[in-house]
């Protein structure tokens, strides 16, 4: 497959109640793409945490603001790897993300909060943030599993 193939596009509101719906859809999609069970759970967690960050930080808990999530199958080079991947782009119109806060926090600190970004980083192969036309865009990449070679090859 070449180029970019759109798999799913979701137009959502920043209501925490939608999180379970998104998790269900992402779980089904990743399963169909051939990810292993742990990888499916990782992608579900990554997307859920990214949405949670948008709701809490970009929209300060307002439940009625727009979030768009796009899922594409792409061929890409990233982190020294080259191959087919699931690309997920989350877009919101909330306040600009403070890049300093994108560093997360030291995990040695035993305190509630601040784990979301760490979970996203650990769950995905690559993560990229940008601000474009007054919108925050978070791009997540997870490489697809490499199919087994045909028997006898």
């Amino acid at each position, binding site marked *: 497959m070449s180029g970019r193939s759109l798999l799913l596009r979701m137009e959502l509101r920043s209501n925490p109640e939608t999180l379970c719906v998104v998790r269900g859809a992402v779980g089904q999609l990743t399963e169909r793409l051939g990810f292993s069970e742990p990888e499916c759970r990782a992608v579900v967690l990554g997307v859920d945490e990214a949405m949670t960050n948008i709701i809490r930080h970009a929209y300060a808990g307002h439940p009625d603001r727009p979030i768009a999530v796009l899922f594409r199958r792409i061929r890409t080079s990233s982190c020294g790897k080259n191959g087919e991947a699931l690309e997920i782009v989350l877009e919101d119109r909330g306040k600009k993300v403070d890049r300093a806060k994108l560093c997360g926090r030291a995990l040695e600190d035993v305190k509630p909060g601040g*784990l979301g970004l760490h979970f996203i980083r650990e769950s995905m192969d690559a993560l990229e943030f940008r601000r474009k036309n007054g919108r925050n865009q978070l791009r997540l990449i997870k490489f697809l599993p490499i199919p087994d070679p045909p028997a006898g090859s």
Partner: protein
Amino acid sequence: MQISARHLDKITIFDITGDIDLATSPELRKPLLRELRELRTPRVVLNLKAVRYIDSSGVASLVEGLKASRDVGSRFILFGLNTTVREVLQLSKLVRIFEICESEEQAVAT
């Protein structure tokens, strides 16, 4: 998410069912902190067997519970962690700070 409480002598066991995420974690946090901060129950046990999913908000609620237990000198014990919950706690690198038991019998007996 649903949460219900059982009381055994000086132990309170919370049975939790469903997903713990941004939408539902306040429903866990509130009774948990009340049990520890107001009632000062000596041992609070969380049954996580029927928890299908937990995110960073849920982990934050557990950490708050743990900190409250330390403040009042109570024990805070988790049991029944399935693969999903265990994976997330391991990812948080916080799994070592919690007292985790394999079964309810162990959680109430130790």
